[in-house]
């Protein structure tokens, strides 16, 4: 296979106050642009991240492994030599390393009867298998996160043909489409982020379920009719905040699938749901992430 052009990746580990300066030198060598990666500490789900203050920032530029690239690299080394606090590293890289590798990551994911497959992969489903086509992009829910997979597994137990379903925090629409594939007659999907909501609409259309899935804005909102099953996969804080509205949106005996939180937050989330009259009927875990399967009272 063609491995594409050869490049050299330069990483300048730079103290925060010199970032603008180093960036200017890197851009002179690589006019096409550079990447600046902050040293971040990921916080919990939906809680973003913190920048590790004082730690070096990684500035990256890529130069072609050609004579011209060599000249530019030499100039870059000379410019940065004046800044002993900046550590410059270099490593060879081939085009194939990035052009193909990210797509390889997104191979099909199967959870029970459901297969999540990007549109660029030809896929022949096995007998009885349900295919959800999702291209990874600007909306959360690619099938590559534990909570998405936990919800996909739980939906297969709870969704029966003809049911009404709610999907709160729909992201890419992956769970709504899966619910429709499992036979749900009507799915209301709530997504506050307009970029994600648009992605979800497009994904529903691409999967041919846009007639059954309605993508709406923020939750809580009045639902069209009481739901047989609802899924909420956001975060402990959001799930708890939505608990009352979710309980109100379910028909008596309706089921709630709640995830998006870590095992450590399980008890707090469960308490919030139980306070709204829901009872625990089952639970799942994957790599530290939790899912609660609950039933509405009545």
């Amino acid at each position, binding site marked *: 296979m063609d491995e594409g052009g050869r*490049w050299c*990746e330069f990483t300048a580990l730079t103290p*925060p*106050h010199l970032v*603008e*300066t180093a*960036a*200017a*030198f890197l*851009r*002179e060598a*690589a006019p*096409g*642009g*550079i*990447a*600046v*990666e*902050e040293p*971040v500490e*990921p*916080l*919990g*789900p*939906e809680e973003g*991240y913190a*920048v590790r203050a004082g730690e070096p920032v990684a500035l*990256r530029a*890529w130069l072609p492994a050609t004579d011209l690239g060599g000249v530019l690299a030499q*100039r870059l080394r*000379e410019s940065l030599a004046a800044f002993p606090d900046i550590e410059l590293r270099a490593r060879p*890289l081939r*085009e194939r*390393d*990035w*052009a193909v*590798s*990210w797509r390889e*990551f*997104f191979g099909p994911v199967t959870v029970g009867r459901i297969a999540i497959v990007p549109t660029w992969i030809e896929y022949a489903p096995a007998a009885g298998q349900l295919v959800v086509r999702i*291209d*990874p*992009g*600007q*909306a*959360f*829910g*690619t*099938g*590559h*996160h534990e*909570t998405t997979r936990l919800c996909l597994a739980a939906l297969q137990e709870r969704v029966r043909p003809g049911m009404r379903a709610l999907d709160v*925090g729909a992201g*890419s629409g992956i769970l709504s489409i899966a619910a429709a594939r499992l036979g749900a007659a009507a799915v209301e999907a709530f997504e506050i982020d307009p*970029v994600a909501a648009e992605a979800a609409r497009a994904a529903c259309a691409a999967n041919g379920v846009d007639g059954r899935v309605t993508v709406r804005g923020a939750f809580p909102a009045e639902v069209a009719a009481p739901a047989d099953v609802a899924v909420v*996969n*956001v*975060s402990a804080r959001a799930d708890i905040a939505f608990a009352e509205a979710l309980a109100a949106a379910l028909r008596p005996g309706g089921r709630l699938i709640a*995830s*998006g939180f870590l095992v450590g937050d399980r008890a707090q989330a469960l308490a919030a749901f139980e306070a709204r009259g829901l009872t625990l009927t089952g639970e799942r875990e994957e790599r530290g992430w939790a899912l609660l399967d609950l039933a509405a009272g009545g």
Partner: protein
Amino acid sequence: MAKKVRAVLTLQIEAGKANPAPPIGPALGQHGANIMEFCKEYNARTQARAGDVIPAQLTIYEDRSFSFVLKTPPAADLLRKAAGVDKGAGAAKLEMAGSVTPADIRRIAETKLPDLNATDIEGAMKIIAGTARSMGIGIED
């Protein structure tokens, strides 16, 4: 959806011209983010500002989905514009590439303040002045 952050990176790239070549390809590729999806969206959002470097700050989540916001142009670009020069003098600093006024420094520092590692305008001005000097752009008295 339970979004957990995997990486945060800023691309300094030219408005409307994103493509899968470096820096975008390798920068996103090594975190497994969808390169074409980003290019399409970035170009759509920045096409009206062709010619300027409009950095994009991406947040890549654990499942490789991402979001991004546009940032202020790099200090070096704003300095070159203020000094009326195409580029800095470069490494050797044998020649002065041009000069800016203290008012220019303050104005650029104000523009850049939200994106700089500085808590106040004085700190930001120091960073901008340092960048100017290292580029061979003088500051008039």
